[in-house]
């Protein structure tokens, strides 16, 4: 078998596994943890989540994002440039790739640094923590919103080829 087939097969496999972990944890944060933390704060049990669950979930979340992006780049291989320049029939996939890239940026530039302040891993005043909470929340919600078209454009098979006339 050609070398390039192995690279594509392995990177596609890794891309899907890491992507499921990344977006799965993103949905966990937004659909489960935000509401659970609000209720837990009300009855004084929030520490269990913020001390033991959130840091571990964030660890796998942010590194799964990196692995997903790198495996995706490896999977694109020679089509990488055409994809990001939205040309030569790679336009729809390129939209998905751009959305995924923006989401990776949100994870490492907006969500993680602010979560470190919220969880007390870096020093911050109460006012800074409140701002950090709002920025991290909105960046996380933005990623949920972006994940919807991202998956539509990336998880394209024959149905999408018919849809886009490719």
């Amino acid at each position: 078998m050609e070398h390039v087939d192995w690279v594509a097969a392995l990177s596609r496999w890794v891309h899907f596994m890491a992507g499921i972990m990344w977006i799965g944890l993103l949905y966990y944060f937004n659909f489960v943890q935000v509401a659970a933390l609000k209720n837990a704060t009300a009855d004084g049990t929030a520490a269990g989540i913020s001390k033991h669950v959130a840091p571990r979930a964030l660890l796998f979340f942010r590194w799964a994002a990196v692995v997903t992006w790198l495996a995706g780049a490896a999977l694109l291989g020679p089509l990488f440039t055409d994809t990001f320049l939205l040309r030569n029939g790679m336009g729809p996939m390129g939209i998905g790739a751009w959305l995924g890239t923006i989401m990776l940026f949100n994870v490492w530039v907006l969500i993680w640094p602010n979560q470190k302040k919220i969880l007390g891993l870096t020093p911050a005043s109460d006012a800074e923590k409140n701002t950090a909470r709002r920025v991290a929340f909105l960046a996380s919600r933005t990623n949920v919103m972006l994940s919807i078209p991202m998956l539509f454009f990336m998880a394209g098979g024959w149905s999408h080829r018919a849809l886009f006339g490719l």
Partner: protein
Amino acid sequence: MKNPLDSLWGTVISGVVLTVVLYVFARNFLG
């Protein structure tokens, strides 16, 4: 106006609307 991202339904509906907008863009403007 309330930020739609403050609610889960608002977030999901925003994502679906964005999908439709990008689909129309891809269908009409991408080669």
